[in-house]
């Protein structure tokens, strides 16, 4: 029985679509470059490829001169042969193994062990089964969101471990054991009024103030391990060393940020390695969609039909975009001018919207802080009190939901190609979300430092606004805590009041309404931006509230289960697929941006602002950074000189220049490599033409 492969490509020249005479394919099939692709089992012999007992088949790209050494380094599992041949190879390898030296045996054993460890680690991943189910029903695009969520949970748990281990737990231990603590940083020159700070003194309060306190971090929650103000500025002496609490606090906060940075960068590089970007990625969209577009993991059901539809939609969109580009290139100068002026006007409108949103956040924060200080909590009702306390969060959330809708409408008027449209909207939304947080912080800063004016009335005595914020770090921590809690509350409310009713309406309601609303689609980009926003809030607040990473980790775990629930009950797969791995890299990039933004308030508070004198582990110090200098002074002379040198400008400027030179060198290298690649491609094309020519000549002569 002749296998099917041999029934094609018969003798006689065939004409291909370009009308050229192609030489008979049977000659092509005998070329060495084709013989490297072996078929399995007996069929391989028919191709004329050597597969006798004495000749081990090589890896697909046969390189000359690399015989047995190369063979051993490619594990058996990765060879494209059928099982019988692999078994033969294995037996041969085992026979050879007896003759190996001990060093080589140890090497092989280590490699084997490492392979097993890696396999075991893959199985030990958290939530593997859930991610599997999500991938099967909704595809890899939505699974990438849950992957990102899992990464954030691990990041927060690691950070929480660091903070709890070095700040919270020792403090609790010292108090519990009632160890002797030596007070530090006593400054007798400070005004008595600056030291007044007693949040728990209240008198008679109504019952709901406890609920308000829980939700806004005031009252009984303020002077606890949760906030900065609770920690003392002292050191505990043990035999041989002393545990300096402010130093531990500062170093663990800085260490937490550094660990987060390293972990994210490591993961981003790992993801980037998987997508080998040799040239511009735009050049292969069609071939990637055709060959790597179908998700083989899809389980039977509606997911497959959705995938067919989405692939068809995507290919159509790409073709349309191409015709649009052609039309765009043919526009007259008059049309172009009109389009540019339209785009300029719309951009101004976008900036106007952003400005309005930021102003709203600024005023809301100002009002909320002032209202909270002016009236005692018991005078307002519970709802009104909560409303005032959460006003900044409410305004930020409203802006984050409504303004992107306006962006989506405006960007369609600008008539960009589709891919650019998506990216532009995403960029604008990212900018909105992260900047609104900065505006909130800026608003707090103006209140704390009286608009940056140290000579203003309220700021003269204690260097910050003592009446409003006796302990300003705790106030900032409270604001971040409120943002976190509000985020969670909004999620629960949206789930209960919007998503589930919508699903009920669509399945059981009247048909026209169901068609109008449509089933909910799980959109990945807005959800990811929510996650990044929440993580940035957590980062900003960690310096002022050491337990925040732990709370955030708990919130993310709850979020995972809630999102999974809403995904399976309410949502259908997205029409437009979000490419999985390129977008995972994009998520991490946005996360890094959030981290960069979180560094700004941290560095400012550590280096510039004076800590409150009434509370916290840095009371009495001129800045937070001075504790580190004081600790360095106790080190031996050599270490001290070295650290002072490293911190000085004489070291930083040459280092910066060196890094710039390195960067320029790498850019030049990259440019020369891409030139080389272009040249090689041209040569390859010429070789292909040579091959066709030669084969034609051979067949004509023979």
């Amino acid at each position, binding site marked *: 029985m002749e296998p099917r492969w041999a029934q094609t490509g018969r003798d006689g020249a065939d004409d291909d679509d370009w009308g050229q005479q192609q030489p008979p394919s049977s000659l092509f099939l005998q070329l060495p470059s084709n013989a490297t692709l072996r078929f399995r089992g007996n069929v391989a012999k028919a191709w004329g490829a050597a597969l006798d007992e004495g000749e081990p088949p090589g890896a697909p790209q046969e390189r000359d001169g690399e015989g047995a050494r190369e063979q051993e380094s490619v594990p058996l599992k990765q060879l494209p042969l059928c099982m019988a041949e692999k078994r033969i190879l294995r037996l041969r390898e085992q026979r050879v193994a007896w003759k190996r030296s001990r060093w080589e045996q140890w090497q092989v054993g280590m490699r084997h062990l490492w392979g097993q460890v890696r396999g075991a680690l893959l199985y030990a991943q958290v939530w593997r089964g859930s991610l599997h189910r999500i991938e099967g029903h909704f595809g890899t695009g939505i699974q990438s969101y849950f992957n990102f969520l899992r990464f954030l949970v691990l990041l927060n748990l690691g950070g929480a471990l660091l903070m709890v281990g070095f700040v919270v737990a020792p403090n609790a231990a010292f108090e519990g054991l009632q160890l002797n603590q030596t007070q530090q940083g006593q400054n007798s020159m400070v005004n008595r009024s600056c030291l007044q700070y007693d949040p728990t003194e209240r008198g008679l309060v109504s019952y709901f103030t406890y609920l308000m306190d829980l939700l806004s971090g005031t009252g009984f929650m303020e002077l606890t391990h949760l906030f900065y103000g609770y920690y003392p500025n002292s050191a505990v002496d043990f035999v041989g060393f002393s545990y300096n609490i402010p130093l531990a606090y500062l170093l663990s906060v800085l260490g937490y940020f550094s660990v987060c940075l390293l972990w994210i960068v490591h993961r981003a590089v790992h993801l980037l390695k998987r997508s080998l970007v040799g*040239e511009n*990625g735009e050049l292969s969209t069609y071939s990637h969609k055709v060959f790597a577009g179908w998700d083989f993991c899809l389980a039977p059901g509606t997911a497959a039909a959705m995938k067919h539809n989405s692939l068809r939609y995507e290919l159509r969109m790409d073709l349309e975009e191409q015709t649009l580009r052609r039309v765009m290139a043919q526009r007259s100068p008059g049309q172009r001018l009109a389009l540019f002026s339209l785009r300029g006007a719309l951009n101004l409108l976008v900036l106007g919207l952003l400005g309005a949103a930021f102003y709203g956040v600024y005023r809301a924060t100002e009002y909320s802080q002032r209202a909270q200080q002016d009236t005692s909590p018991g005078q307002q009702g519970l709802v009104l009190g909560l409303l005032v306390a959460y006003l900044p969060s409410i305004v930020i959330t409203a802006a984050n939901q409504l303004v992107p809708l306006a962006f989506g409408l405006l960007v369609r008027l600008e008539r960009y190609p589709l891919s650019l449209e998506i990216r532009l909207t995403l960029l604008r939304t990212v900018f909105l979300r992260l900047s609104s947080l900065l505006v909130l912080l800026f608003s707090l800063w103006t209140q704390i430092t009286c608009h940056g004016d140290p000579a203003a009335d309220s700021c003269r005595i204690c260097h910050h606004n003592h009446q409003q914020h006796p302990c300003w770090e705790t106030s900032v921590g409270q604001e971040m805590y409120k943002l976190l809690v509000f985020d969670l509350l909004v999620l629960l409310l949206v789930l209960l009041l919007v998503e589930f009713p919508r699903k009920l309406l669509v399945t059981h309601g009247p048909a026209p309404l169901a068609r109008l609303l449509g089933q909910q689609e799980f959109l990945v980009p807005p959800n990811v931006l929510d996650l990044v926003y929440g993580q940035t809030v957590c980062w900003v607040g960690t310096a002022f509230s050491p337990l925040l990473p732990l709370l955030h980790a708990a919130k993310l775990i709850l979020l995972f289960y809630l999102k999974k629930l809403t995904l399976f009950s309410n949502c259908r797969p997205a029409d437009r697929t979000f490419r999985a791995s390129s977008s995972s890299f994009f998520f991490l990039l946005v996360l890094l941006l959030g981290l960069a933004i979180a560094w700004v308030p941290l560095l400012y508070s550590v280096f510039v602002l004076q800590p409150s004198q009434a509370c916290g582990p840095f009371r009495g110090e001129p800045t937070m950074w001075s504790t580190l200098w004081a600790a360095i002074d106790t080190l031996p002379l050599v270490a001290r000189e070295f650290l002072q040198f490293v911190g000085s400008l004489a070291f930083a400027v040459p280092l910066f220049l060196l890094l710039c030179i390195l960067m320029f060198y790498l850019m030049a290298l990259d440019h020369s490599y891409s030139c080389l690649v272009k040249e090689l491609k041209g040569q390859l*094309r010429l070789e292909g033409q040579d091959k066709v020519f030669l084969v034609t000549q051979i067949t004509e002569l023979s």
Partner: protein
Amino acid sequence: MGNKQTIFTDEQLDAYQDCTFFTRKEILRLHGRYHEMAPNIVPMDYTKDPDVKLPIQLIINMPELKENPFKERIVEAFSEDGDGNLSFNDFVDMFSVLSEMAPRELKAIYAFKIYDFNTDNFICKSDLEKTLNKLTREELTAEEITLVCEKVIEEADMDGDGKLAFADFENMISKAPDFLSTFHIRI
């Protein structure tokens, strides 16, 4: 594991572990799946290496493959006779290559075989048209299909012969960021 199983000898299981990306437990589970497709034909005792093959119609009805538009080609690419009849060895090999631990190079080789419908070792225009039709369930117009095929060949063909050889295909697929995650079946 410890408990006595009589399906394979220990030596066979070791060989499977070395030659595929599966553990012993998974090999036994795969045997269970293979057996339940045709309990009358597939023996429970594989210690003597019986020569049993399942026809293609049974295998493409597996839930993992049922919705896949390329299911016939996948099974044919892994069968020794090219017609889609899989022995247990081929069955295990197929899922091993499609598992998440198989490297990119190995998957690229088999992906090329799968998309090569007329098995002439090139992905020519007719292969591409068949691929597209299967992907979109023949709902694109003929003009759209021609346009897309032209675009694909333009993007990936390096030596200018109007069809994709394995080197072209591998070069193109190595730049596809989600090839590893989409060309993957969990069993």
